[in-house]
């Protein structure tokens, strides 16, 4: 019974990782850039949700939508200002810029509002407790998991059924060829950043509701964990990010369950190292030769 309980704990945590990992993976898939500022977009989303709920007095769904919209715009802005001018630069230059953008957002935000934490109101979503065979399931974890799954399904539909999804797949396959076929590469890349950032914003609001405490540096660790999740599933592969996120959440829960809670973060990164050594293409990746 305890094991099932721990699996549920892990899946709730994993859904948040998965939502953030999707943004990483989409951006990497299309421009081959590890967007380290992604974790900070998640943080901004969390604060936008917080202010929508407390200042504008909105309920969960409108707050979620506002946060997703703001984050989408924010993501596009970051891409246009910081990454677009470097599109033909070396990959290491783009990577370092990403780290710079990340620090700029974090400390810029601290400059604007201070570093003190903020607490989400406790009554945004109902907190019913269900007891099923001795396993207590919180209604919030069910809702969080549900929202995460719904968003992922919508994403899957966008990527595989819509016109922009088709463009994204074409650009990720070969940007030059796509350009020759009349696809607006810049807009497609912006759209990718917008969708990925919107998902991070949603994850931010969910995180705030589930974990209550938010602060300007909250994006750092979940951002890195989501990166691990993306690599675990195979970076650039959307279903891989989902599975990687959930798997990482469950691994962390099990490590804590075994009594090694202080090792939890370390294990997540050991997973990253192991996967890079033994399966660099990730769980869902095809084995093709490419330098990463």
């Amino acid at each position, binding site marked *: 019974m305890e094991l099932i309980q721990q699996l549920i704990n892990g899946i709730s*945590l994993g859904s948040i990782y998965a939502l953030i990992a999707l943004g990483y993976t989409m951006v990497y898939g299309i421009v081959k850039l590890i967007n380290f500022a992604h974790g900070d977009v998640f943080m901004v989303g969390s604060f936008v949700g917080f202010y929508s709920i407390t200042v504008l007095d909105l309920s969960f769904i409108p707050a979620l939508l506002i946060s997703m919209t703001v984050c989408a715009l924010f993501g596009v802005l970051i891409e246009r200002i910081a990454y677009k001018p470097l599109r033909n630069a070396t990959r290491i230059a783009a990577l370092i810029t990403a780290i710079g953008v990340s620090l700029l957002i974090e400390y810029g935000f601290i400059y604007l509002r201070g570093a003190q*934490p903020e607490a989400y109101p406790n009554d945004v979503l109902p*907190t019913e*407790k269900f007891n099923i065979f001795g396993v207590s399931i919180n209604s919030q974890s069910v809702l969080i998991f549900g929202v995460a799954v719904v968003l992922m399904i919508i994403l899957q539909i966008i990527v595989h059924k819509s016109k922009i999804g088709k463009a994204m797949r074409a650009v990720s396959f070969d940007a030059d060829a796509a350009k020759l076929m009349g696809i607006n590469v810049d807009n497609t890349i912006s759209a990718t950043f917008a969708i990925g950032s919107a998902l991070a914003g949603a994850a931010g609001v969910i995180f705030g509701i589930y974990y*209550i*405490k938010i602060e300007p540096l909250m994006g750092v660790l979940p951002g890195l964990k989501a990166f691990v999740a993306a690599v675990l599933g195979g970076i650039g592969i959307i279903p891989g990010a989902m599975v990687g996120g959930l798997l990482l959440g469950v691994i*962390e829960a099990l490590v*804590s*369950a075994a009594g090694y809670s*202080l090792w939890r973060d370390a294990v997540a990164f050991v997973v990253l190292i192991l996967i890079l050594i033994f399966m660099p293409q990730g769980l869902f990746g095809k084995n093709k030769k490419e330098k990463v």
Partner: protein
Amino acid sequence: MKKKKLAGAFLSLTLAAGVLAGCSGSGSSEKSSGDGDTIKIGVNLELSGGVASYGQSIAEGLELATAEINKEGIDGKKIKLIKVDNKSEASEATSGAIKLTSQDQVAAIVGAATSTNSIAQVQIAQDNKVPVISPSGTSPEITFSKDKLNDYIFRTSFIDPFQGTVAANFATKEIKAKSAAIYIDSASDYSKGLAAAFKEQFEKNGGKIVAEEAYIAKDTDFRSTLTRLKSAKPDFIFLPGYYEEAGLIVKQARETGLDVPFMGGDGWDSPKLVEIAGAKALNNTFITNHYSSGDPDEKIQNFVSAFKAKYKDKSPDAFNALGYDTGYFLADAIKRAGSADSEKIKEALEKTADLELVTGTFTLDEKHNPIKSATILEFKEGKQVFNTKINP
């Protein structure tokens, strides 16, 4: 431009004032601190800087106590406070102590609020043989470091491990807990110190520690560890940490179905705790603290009303109370010493016993730490309610 001029004028005014104040200070210090009808007490506090709120609260409490003591005076003499702002920095605390001992020749020094700034004064006090009382420094090292007693240094607050001992006694006697779990912040000496003392005393009381878990500050997900704690079935969980994590842990514990009492130390004492955990989750949780303004004790209620009368209806916090007590702690020693001589005050301070003050009944132990009662507060619907007082 105009602003600059104004700032310049202001600066020169303050400078002039400082020079004048310095003159008058050195003028009266021609006499030694024992002569005349005033007793000079140095105050070396964090009046500005990072932890200014602690220093200012202590100063408010101390000023109230001084005003009360001066109504009658001590053997006809009045206490005069000479304040130094250490700007919440250790180096400023040291130079403040030098100024107070050499230039102002004070009989004793009150301060500083934090452990670090108190330790910064130790050497000066020892060399000049001037007693220093730290109102709220809780590190054991202030009075006793490197296996040596700093014999001129005293404190008004209890030390960190003491809270753990009190919590263990509370768990055994009041909660009637047979088994307990400990959940610590492995990155904090404060948390580890409290936990070690709790464990020792709880086992001495015949209790059993069934689980020991740790987290790292800034963690947000504690559910897995809490699920593990739940299956260990403790009667009581000791959670010495700071309010950010403590709030999250209590909230997540209640969601996991872990409904046993939780207890923490003064690190929980912040309004943010209630915001994070939620009022309902905090029911059946307790903290040890220096004092409670809700304590029905007459001495405390007199203090609360006197404080409210002086400071515009502000309810006194723990630092106000500690500052107030430091004033009386020192006045009592001066009275018993029968003189304002630093050496005699030090000897009298060492012999303090059964002195009844707002934050408890003081008896000094051989390490210059007061053995005094701690107050247990209980959270009821998000409000801190006085529960009981525990003697060590």
